[in-house]
């Protein structure tokens, strides 16, 4: 074990002990029940933060700083997939040409969800593959980027896949530096950092994520749960296909079971609506009911799903065929009567007995008379093994969330694959340069994460190890910080303005427990970050509280009440600057105003003797911290975009990525 890791572990233990000591005392001895309306929110917020800190400590316990992998063997087949929807053709081509120039032999593809002829022409001119959605997607759910990738996975065949967003310009060594990890046959995915070239040193919008693309990913890597982040990652095709196939099998059998469960009721209802004189139809529906019973019994007896559904479909075919036969024989009887009446025209050789093609076609699913009863058609179709409502039966990239990466990765880990985090940037991209776009992007990430939390909560994923579950959960947990922020902002204001104290007393008991925890927690951050800037990240964690809350509520409404997320694609194009965007940060401005007013009122109250000095000063410090954190949003609102002059001696790839910025504007 390195000395650094040993030091980290010691600090983690001390952080945990001091933190638990503090929070236990808080719960047991300090709550001011008279002010329950702020006392409980505050202690819950504090407990939330401690759990966040404990999860961080648990991850960092196994911080994994990987040595460079061995060089890859020759002869691996690799597809480089560049996803685009509406980015300018020149921007995509800039990235695609850099991708083509990657040294390890590979095939480059542009996945053009915009289906643009000019994109296609540009790609073909340079010998770059161009893929758009196949016909199967017409009228089916498109599933955004996940759908775009799923479509391309069917049309390509490389053993390995490098996924790049349209603005992520790769370095020539990107594959040489990463394919070596796959010497381990269980390695499914290698994620590299996302680094942005159009961000000044002080990073006003918090675009770089130095803590995430660093210690946090390395923590997750230590527990074999390094995350897939949607771009700049190499994936083993076999792992992806396995996800698709296993999901398919699981979802199909679930659907067949569910259908067979409620089928009898549907059939009985359909039968009641058929007029009594149509005995043929009623009998046919009775027969289908019997077939449903049989299929259910066979599945219960443990017969294979595909065998059962095949027999079911063939038997229903036979019922359909008899319905058509009955129709046609009465038709034939009518024809005979017409012939007997004389004066018939044309040939009288109408007979279908020897016309098997016609019989088969009339009895086919959509042609048969049974097709007229929609509920029965839907039911019979559902007891089959294709995915009627989707363009492709096999969907490797998860479609349960607007951020497909996390859900896909979790499923991959669930199937026993490993992942690795490679800590050196190998591609350079563009970050949003204005507050509005940045807020949209953060909202989307948070919403996606919340969707996965609600739909496939990692804590209940039996195939994941407990550390893996916690690593996924800790990312979700950190997105809940918006609710805690409300309490952390409101508590000092309530004290300074109204004298409401959420704790029984700001005694030495309180400080002696809190201060050591705060200090040691900061020390942990300093040691772990090892010189990487972390202050921006801490600021935005608080300052974007309205975004985090909205992400939670909208994802909740989407998953449990079927509401729309108001989902927006993050624009890569530079937005025209229109002056400071204060209208986007009203809740934060309100909070800042409240904090400032609280300082004024608190000062007056202290001077006139209405408030005690020590608690007032303590709350001043607290307000000062709140203001230092939240004020970043004002700076962000005033940010006018990146000035290229401030970038210093960039590598060639980064310069190419910067050119993308000009194409976009």
């Amino acid at each position: 074990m390195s000395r650094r890791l040993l030091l980290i572990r010691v600090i983690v233990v001390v952080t945990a002990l001091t933190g638990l000591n503090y929070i236990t005392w808080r719960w047991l001895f300090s709550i001011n029940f008279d002010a329950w309306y702020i006392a409980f929110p505050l202690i819950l917020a504090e407990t939330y933060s401690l759990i966040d800190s404990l999860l961080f400590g648990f991850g960092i316990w196994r911080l994994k700083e990987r040595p460079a992998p061995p060089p890859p063997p020759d002869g691996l087949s690799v597809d480089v997939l560049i996803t685009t929807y509406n980015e300018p053709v020149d921007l995509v081509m800039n990235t695609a040409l850099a991708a083509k120039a990657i040294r390890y032999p590979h095939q480059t593809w542009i996945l053009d969800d915009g289906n643009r002829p000019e994109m296609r022409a540009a790609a073909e001119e340079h010998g770059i593959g161009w893929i758009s959605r196949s016909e199967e997607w017409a009228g089916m759910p498109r599933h955004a980027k996940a759908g775009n990738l799923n479509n391309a996975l069917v049309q390509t065949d490389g053993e390995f896949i490098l996924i790049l967003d349209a603005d992520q310009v790769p370095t020539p060594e990107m594959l040489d530096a990463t394919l070596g990890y796959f010497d381990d046959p269980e390695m499914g995915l290698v994620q590299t950092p996302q680094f942005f070239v159009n961000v000044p040193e002080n990073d006003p919008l918090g675009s770089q994520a130095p803590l995430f693309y660093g210690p946090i990913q390395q923590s997750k890597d230590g527990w074999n749960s390094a995350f897939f982040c949607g771009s700049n990652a190499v994936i083993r095709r076999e792992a992806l296909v396995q996800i698709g196939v296993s999901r398919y099998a699981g979802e199909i059998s679930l659907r067949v079971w569910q259908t067979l469960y409620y089928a009898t009721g549907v059939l009985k209802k359909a039968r009641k609506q058929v007029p009594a004189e149509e005995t043929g139809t009623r009998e046919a529906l009775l027969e289908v009911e019997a077939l449903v019973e049989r299929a259910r019994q066979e599945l219960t007896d443990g017969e294979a799903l595909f065998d059962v559904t095949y027999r079911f479909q063939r038997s229903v075919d036979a019922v359909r065929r008899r319905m058509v036969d009955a129709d046609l024989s009465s038709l034939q009887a009518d024809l005979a009567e017409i012939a007997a009446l004389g004066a018939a025209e044309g040939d009288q050789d109408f007979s279908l007995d020897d016309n098997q093609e016609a019989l088969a076609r009339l009895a086919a699913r959509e042609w048969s008379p049974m097709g007229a009863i929609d509920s029965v058609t839907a039911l019979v179709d559902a007891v089959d093994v294709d995915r009627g409502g989707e363009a492709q039966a096999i969907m490797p990239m998860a479609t349960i969330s607007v951020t497909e990466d996390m859900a896909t990765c979790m499923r991959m880990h669930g199937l026993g694959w490993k992942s690795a985090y490679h800590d050196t940037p190998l591609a350079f991209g563009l970050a949003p340069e204005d507050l509005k776009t940045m807020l949209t992007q953060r909202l989307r990430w948070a919403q996606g994460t919340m969707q996965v939390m609600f739909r496939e909560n990692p804590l209940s994923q039996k195939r994941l190890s407990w550390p893996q579950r916690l690593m996924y959960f800790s990312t979700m947990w950190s997105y809940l910080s918006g609710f805690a922020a409300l309490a952390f902002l409101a508590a000092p204001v309530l004290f300074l303005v109204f004298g409401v104290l959420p704790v029984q007393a700001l005694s030495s008991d309180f400080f002696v427990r809190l201060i050591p925890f705060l200090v040691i927690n900061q020390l942990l951050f300093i040691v772990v970050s090892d010189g990487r800037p972390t202050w921006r990240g801490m600021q935005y964690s608080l300052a974007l509280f309205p975004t985090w809350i909205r992400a939670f509520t909208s994802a909740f409404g989407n998953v449990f009440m079927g509401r729309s997320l108001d989902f927006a694609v993050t624009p890569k194009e530079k937005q025209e600057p229109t002056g400071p965007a204060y209208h986007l940060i009203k809740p934060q401005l309100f909070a800042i105003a409240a904090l400032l007013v609280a300082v004024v009122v608190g000062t007056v109250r202290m001077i006139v003797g209405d408030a005690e000095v020590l608690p007032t000063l303590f709350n001043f410090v607290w307000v000062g911290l709140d203001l230092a954190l939240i004020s970043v949003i004002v700076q962000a609102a005033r940010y006018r975009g990146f000035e290229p002059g401030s970038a210093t001696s960039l590598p060639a790839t980064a310069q190419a990525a910067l050119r993308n910025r000009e194409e976009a504007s």
Partner: protein
Amino acid sequence: MIEFDVRTLDTGVGVVTPRGRLNMVAARQFKTILGDLVTEGTHRIVVDLAETDFIDSSGLGALIGGVKQTRQQGGDLRIARPTESVMGVLELTNLARVLRPRDAVDTAFDD
């Protein structure tokens, strides 16, 4: 799902236009409409299939049933302007050879 237009030409010919899918469920209604027309004394009927997207064996049965009923009363039922989809089924089943489609509603009874 399906609608039926029923009108009578100056020549006394009844015109039934099914709009939509002429399937088993629709066939019940279709039979009733044809039956009512015959009962009311309209023995020459044109079924205008220009807006019929689909026909199944029950629909075919209803058509031929209509031919039988009208002929028993000394009239006839003719079909006009079938859509590609319907024509496909008529050809497939050889019914087009017994029930020849006419090009226009107005002239369906001219021969």
